[in-house]
């Protein structure tokens, strides 16, 4: 890749990205408003009593009495100035709600991401190297099981084993509440809470990476340049690392890029089962309550992240594989 091309390439990509994000925002807006029900009627439903004045007050307060195009215009104006709006349902700015949940989400998805990548790629590489042995069989079967089992079920089973039967780990939440803990102990406490949800979320991706790594490594291992390297006497470990694994990385990077894009969105299932206070649940609750502003805020952030990680993935391709050309 020629370094001189980079700024122009980046600029072109960023313009495209901005257009994509804007289109997503508009689509989301109409999609969300197309769903039947509105926040006011839901609050009325949850309160067990309502009258016309109550609904009118709520709709006026939420800005729902304005025509749809006015609401869209107001929202777009906000987004362009990075103002994600205000959740009238919760009486809080959307950005505050998102920031509150972001650390928990990043901690969970980030550790699951790293865990999955490290363990998955190692398992896959091991299986590929020992292809046909019982190592390979065990890893393949494990990967298949992790891949095929529903997340929430894995989560509940882990809780039954480690929280209920063995009483080693807490089954829900992110930290112990109501006890004063010093810095290190507090970190340890969060760590103990993180193990089960992290594992649950990570196992699926472990399986994905293991299977992907194994398959592509086996494919690459048959190629001429590997045979050549072996013929010229390169040590086996070096062949696996430098020639096979590195060439097998592209699909893994692709998938890691996709997963990284979802890191900020959290995981609704795992966050629900483990009562983890992350963004996935915020979005899900907002969806059920038709809390439009919050939902659009979450969508906006995740779409921006996906776009950014797509860009990063493309750049990474070029670094890992010099044959990949950058073209706007």
């Amino acid at each position: 890749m020629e370094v001189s091309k980079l700024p122009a390439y980046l600029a072109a990509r960023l313009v495209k990205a901005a257009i994509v994000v804007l289109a997503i925002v508009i689509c989301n807006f109409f999609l969300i408003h197309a769903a039947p029900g509105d926040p006011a009627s839901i609050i009325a439903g949850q309160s067990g009593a309502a009258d016309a004045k109550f609904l009118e007050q709520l709709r006026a307060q939420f800005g729902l009495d304005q025509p749809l195009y006015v609401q869209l215009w107001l929202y777009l104006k906000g987004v362009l100035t990075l103002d994600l709006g205000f959740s009238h349902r919760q009486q809080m700015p959307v950005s505050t709600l998102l920031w509150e949940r972001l650390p928990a989400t990043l901690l969970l998805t980030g550790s699951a991401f790293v865990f999955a990548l490290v363990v998955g790629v190692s398992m896959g590489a091991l299986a590929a190297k020992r292809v046909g042995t019982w190592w390979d069989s065990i890893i393949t079967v494990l990967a298949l099981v992790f891949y095929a089992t529903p997340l929430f079920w894995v989560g509940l089973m882990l809780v039954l084993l480690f929280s209920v039967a063995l009483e080693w780990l807490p089954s829900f939440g992110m930290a112990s509440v109501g006890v004063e803990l010093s810095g290190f102990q507090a970190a340890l406490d969060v760590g103990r809470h993180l193990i089960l949800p992290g594992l649950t979320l990570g196992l699926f991706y472990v399986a994905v990476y293991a299977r992907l790594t194994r398959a592509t490594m086996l494919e690459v291992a048959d190629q001429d340049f590997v045979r050549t390297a072996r013929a010229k006497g390169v040590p086996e470990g070096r062949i696996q690392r430098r020639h096979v694994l590195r060439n097998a990385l592209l699909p893994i990077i692709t998938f890691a890029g996709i997963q990284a894009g979802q890191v900020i969105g959290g995981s609704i299932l795992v966050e629900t089962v483990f009562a983890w206070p992350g963004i996935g649940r915020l979005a899900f609750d907002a969806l059920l309550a038709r809390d439009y502003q919050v939902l659009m805020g979450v969508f906006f952030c995740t779409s921006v992240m996906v776009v950014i990680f797509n860009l990063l993935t493309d750049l990474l391709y070029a670094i890992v594989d010099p044959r990949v050309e950058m073209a706007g």
Partner: protein
Amino acid sequence: MGLSRRGLLAGAAAAPLLMRVDDALAQGIQPKRGGTLNSIVNPEPPILHVGVNNQAPTLIVGGKIFQGLLRYSSKLEPLPELAKSWEISPDGLEYTFHLQENVKFHDGQPMTAEDVVFSIMKFHMEVSPRARGVFSRIKEGVAVDRNTAKFVLSAPFEPFLLMFDVTVSAIVPKHHFEGQDYRQAPVVQKPIGTGPFRFVEWQRGNFIRLERFDGYWKPNQPYLDAIIYRVIPDSQSRRLALESGQVQLTQSNDIEPFDVPQMRARPNLEVQTTGWEYFGPLMWLELNHRVKPLDDVRVRKALAHAVNRDFIAQRLWFGIGKPATGPVASSTRFHDATARMPSFDVNAAKKLLDEAGLKPNGQGVRFTIRHLSLPYGEVFTRLGEFLRQSLRQVGVDLQLESVDVGTWAQRTANWEFDTTINYLYQYGDPTLGVERSYVSTNIKKILFSNVSGYANPKVDELFTQARDAAEPAKRQEYFTAVQKILVEDVPLVWLLEMAFPTIHEKRLHNVITSGAGVHASFDDVFLA
């Protein structure tokens, strides 16, 4: 002057007796100071201030932070709370409340009659549709002196005294609201009340933490140091949290009914289903009378005959709650046990449908209706399936439609359903919680109005008479008559007098001591 009126007047005098009942509930165990109670809040409310938000979870948590003037026994007798005594003028128009001395808000300011008048006349009138419906009958509310508040009604309203529970009209600090938009005042995010526990922290999606209020007006109370409500959205995770001892108390919908038998079997847990008498939730099959053939009374009667309500109570709700018998729940005042809806009788149902001219076709189907499932959890899905089977036996094809809460709320409010499930609180008195579902003046495109579209001038008239009558005996007459008409007209198919399981560790005492159960202040709850 009837007996009940004197009963109301004697409210304050009866109180010591009932307190001894509370003590007895503690089974002779001395209250102990200290300890943190972990419980669950589900679903997590968007706002924690009672009045501004009136979802059940807000009222349960808010019941610890705030207090009302009165609380109610399981028989709906008023008991002193922030009002230590009260008087009603002989004409039933003037209600005078004498307040407890030395009551402070959590910010240290004293609570006075000014706050009481503000809360009733301004705050709840503005934010709460339910309170507005009744308090708009108050002609005048005045603070007579620092510790006396008086409300003058424009006409007698016998159920008025039922309106002072914390879940309806909590006393809020006037100095934090006056001159502001009540819904957006800063104090809404950090509620300040007079209750035994003060709001400390709410990490959204995670937990709500309340701590003992040292300035609480009852000496040496509350006993607990703190109450923590954890947010656990998944029902199986909630069950595991209870089983593993990470929480010591669950309430309302936290534990699914089908998990309750296993909880009953655990030696360290106690399951109670009392403490909902003040609310009297009644569940029914809502019928849209605009949809043929549901406008035909014979068809509605047949549907009522076709459903085995005992099965619903015993096999779907596992004995939590009891089969409904009519429009007024048995815990609600003026319930008439002789007015009974059609009993479970499949043959009678078939006969009625034949009479209505609805003959079965080749597949044995007489007609098809679409049923909107109530999206409030797994048990309601099972209920939908049970209803489909029951009605299929008499030749009615019920097609289930699954929707989310928002869709259900909108479609039910807009009459876009054939049948659906609904349950409404009766708030102890038919005027407060029953009338709204049957009178034609309340046929509106609003949830919890008369969305079925049932109209009967006689019913309208009787409900109005019962509402305006000053004497309980007279009201009973009208309510008995209206119940008799309703069980004949079957505007809805009543299914279940609901209750919700309160499950707690046995070392937690005094959990249910009133008709409002877990909504109480918990100032007498202790861990031993």
